[in-house]
């Protein structure tokens, strides 16, 4: 019941937006997303206390093909659902100061995207997963393409085609796995886990899935679409992309790649780990050189998710648990960072670091909030980022010490570029002496303060989230180890 409501509420509210007048679109969206958040928190409480029956829903959809509309929430999905439901009201509220042309379309697209995102995280049927995975592409394409900045048309088209190309290869793999299931074939994900595939099969299935998720996350060298797309997208679009959408790729790695193609992972694991670590260092170095604040955070995002992906590939409990909690944290941090950059851009008219300076003196509360989130992004102990990075590095170290050393550079380089940002933007002398912008208003504070509190809260008490995902993570790793064991026993 709860699961289907998580999908139904965004859908119903998006229809409501179309019917109601444009002035009320934002309020309607906000109430819809808050309702979804309440539902997600309710589900979280239920889940933590062990009552999970309400969270399943399964009806036949296309019986001729064995496709079920099968959704359900396990530990990993729960955190993803909570993250999505939590970030959405903030993202919607962040548009309150922007003049949006044609708001009905904009908010309807945002809610449709929430439907798609929720669906990806709770699908237990591979076909359904694929449908929701693709479904999210259309709203974000139109959001970026219609309300974006300059050069948005070629950039968003490249993003769309690139991402779709990867996921189409995933479709081939899914159909192939479907025909491998015994008897009356089924798309059920758990039956995919139980397939015994030969090693060569697993290798190409690994690559098909990896391609799809590597482009989405993005992992070096499939990241070229990301900085441009984040830059031209409207702020709400960037928050959606960075905060939630890329987590679909990481979630897919855990849900599909690890359990279904462990042989492929064993064969290519070092290579993918190498790609991730190279990506971390590469993106951090580029972020160090950036002048455009949005691009800087975009590149830092590539570095962070490279670390998360490396943690997933490390195939141990610390790594994967660290990945899941860091997905949550990264979502919170990056949404807060992009929002505050948006505030700066609106007040000062520029995102260019050289043209900014002394913001701290003029907007004291913003500088404090930015410091908190920045420290969370850098990974100072007592912030959420530290918990995630510590677990991830622990997991990667267990995989290979050199990988951990290289990945650990993310801590250093992250501090470098983020502190450079802070120094150039918030400290120093003011560049333009004309007007003194006002500090954060109440609405903006209502968005920023809870996010800052989350940064600290999850840093201080992470087991709230870690406990939820633990058993599901152990199950997936069990599947990986079992299939590796059974093959080594042969």
């Amino acid at each position: 019941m709860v699961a289907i409501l998580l999908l139904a509420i965004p859908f119903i509210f998006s229809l409501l937006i179309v019917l109601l007048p444009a002035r009320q679109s934002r309020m309607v969206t906000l109430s819809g997303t808050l309702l979804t958040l309440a539902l997600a928190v309710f589900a979280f409480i239920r889940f933590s206390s062990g009552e999970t029956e309400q969270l399943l829903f399964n009806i036949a959809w296309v019986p001729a093909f064995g496709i079920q509309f099968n959704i359900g929430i396990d530990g990993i999905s729960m955190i993803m659902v909570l993250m999505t439901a939590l970030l959405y009201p903030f993202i919607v509220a962040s548009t309150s100061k922007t003049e949006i042309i044609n708001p009905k379309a904009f908010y309807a697209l945002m809610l449709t995207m929430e439907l798609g995102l929720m669906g990806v995280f709770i699908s237990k049927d591979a076909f359904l997963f694929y449908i929701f995975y693709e479904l999210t592409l259309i709203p974000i394409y139109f959001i970026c393409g219609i309300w974006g900045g300059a050069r948005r048309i070629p950039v968003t088209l490249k993003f769309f085609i690139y991402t779709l190309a990867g996921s189409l290869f995933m479709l081939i793999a899914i159909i192939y796995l479907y025909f491998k299931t015994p008897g009356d074939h089924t798309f059920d994900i758990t039956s995919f886990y139980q397939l015994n595939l030969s090693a060569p099969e697993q290798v190409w299935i690994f690559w098909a899935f990896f391609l799809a998720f590597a482009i989405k996350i993005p992992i070096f060298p499939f990241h070229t679409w990301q900085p441009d797309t984040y830059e031209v997208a409207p702020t709400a679009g960037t928050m959606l992309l960075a905060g939630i959408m890329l987590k679909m790729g990481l979630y897919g790695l855990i849900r599909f790649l690890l359990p279904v193609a462990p042989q492929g992972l064993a064969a290519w694991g070092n290579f993918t780990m190498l790609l991730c670590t190279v990506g971390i260092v590469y993106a951090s170095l580029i972020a160090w050189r950036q002048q455009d604040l949005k691009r800087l955070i975009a590149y830092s995002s590539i570095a962070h998710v490279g670390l998360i992906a490396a943690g997933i590939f490390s195939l141990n409990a610390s790594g994967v648990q660290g990945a899941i909690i860091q997905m949550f944290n990264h979502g919170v941090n990056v949404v807060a960072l992009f929002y505050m950059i948006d505030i700066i851009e609106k007040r000062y008219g520029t995102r260019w670091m050289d043209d900014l300076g002394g913001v701290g003196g003029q907007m004291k509360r913003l500088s404090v909030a930015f410091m908190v989130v920045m420290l969370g992004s850098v990974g100072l102990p007592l912030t959420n980022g530290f918990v995630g990075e510590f677990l991830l590095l622990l997991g990667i170290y267990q995989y290979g010490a050199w990988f951990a050393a290289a990945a650990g550079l993310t801590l250093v380089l992250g501090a470098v570029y983020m502190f450079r940002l802070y120094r150039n933007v918030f400290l120093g002398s003011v560049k333009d002496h004309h007007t003194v912008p006002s500090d954060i208003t109440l609405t903006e504070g209502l968005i920023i303060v809870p996010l800052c509190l989350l940064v600290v809260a999850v840093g201080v008490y992470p087991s709230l989230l870690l406990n939820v995902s633990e058993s599901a993570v152990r199950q997936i790793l069990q599947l990986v180890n079992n299939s590796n064991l059974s093959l080594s026993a042969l």
Partner: protein
Amino acid sequence: MNLLITLSALGILTMLGSVLKERSWILPLCVTGLLLASYFALAGWDMNAALFGMMRIDNYAVAFTIVNLIAALVFIFMYHETHVNVDEHLHEVFAIVLFSLVGVVVMVSFTSMLTLFLGIEILSLSLYIMAGLRKRDLLSNEAALKYFLMGAFSTGFLLFGIAMLYGATGSFMVSDIAYYLGIHSAPGPFIVAGIILLLVGLLFKVAAAPFHFWTPDVYQGAPTLVTGYMATVGKVAAFAALLRLFQLGFTPAIASYQSLLAVVAVITMFVGNLTALYQKSTKRMLAYSSIAHAGYMLIALMASNNFASGAVFFYAIAYSCASLIAFGVVAILQQSDLGDDITAFKGLGKKNPVLAITFAIAMISLAGIPPTAGFFAKFYIFSAAIKDGWVWIVALAVINSFISIYFYFRPVIASFMEKGNDTPVLAGRTTWLLLIILVFIILVAGIFPGLASGIL
């Protein structure tokens, strides 16, 4: 039998009636007649009525007949609305459409090669005439002549192939040929030559590479709605005939032509999609895209399992709806004097949002993106191919799918993300309603594919 009689009688009545002064009764007559014909077709479901030993109205025939009848109905409504005050030969066009439908029914229900030929010719002759409807337009005349010459040439191939098969097996009946092929495991030269010649003739009709060269010029020259009719009914009927022939007749010898079909399918997809990338005219782009879609459907033909006819049927529905919408919108833009260039779409999102959204959904469906019918159709075809182990072909088809996004999205981008001039774009009420119904079908078939996927 009732079906054929209804359609033929309707055609003759319309033709005779167009001579009279008072002609406002012809459209209602056609519509009622088509609905009656659909009823007769549906009544033949699960009946397997055999007609003179030359045709059999089985479920396959009924399904494809219904699809084509509904497409023709949509065409008649749209054509009537746009041409009622302009074209004095309007009702003769209806007569030709009805005669072509007779050809369609014969083509999808044949059991003898002769009826296959008969059906193809009836349909093709009607289409040749319709392509040249604009008597004073040079492009239209060129389209008709080109179509006629190349069509007649390819029908020659068809007949040659039929003759070869008759020479080898001694019968025109498709079932006899299948029996012969079942007995003789190694098909002799006459059989192989006959199959290939037949394939050439039919691939021409379907517009598969390398027999597609007539398509862009003919599609661009013909009046836009007629192009819509050719792209839907013409192509779907030809494909249904091709699939029927190969499923009923040649399955025992499939090994001899499977690789050939695979190569043709891949070439068709690439030629269609890559050339469409360079088109500035929407009609030519849609023509090349229809070539590419024939390529996707040929993949289903290669995989001779029980998924194939269901896949092609579902694909036919998805493709027909999307094509009718696309050509309908282009026709409306042409009527508003905006031309058929992609630049005609600029600012359509503001001028006429309903048209822009329906066109966008049609493009999204043709590109094969969920949750539209086009996605499930592609998925169905990919499943049919992967089941038989043709994974490489599906990978190539997938590459083509995302190449196609580029040109399918160009009009969509122009509609929503670019500014246009002030020319208003108005659609007639019937066309508007039809477009919405077609979009509804695309979305419903995409979200609840079970409704149509289990039929064949």
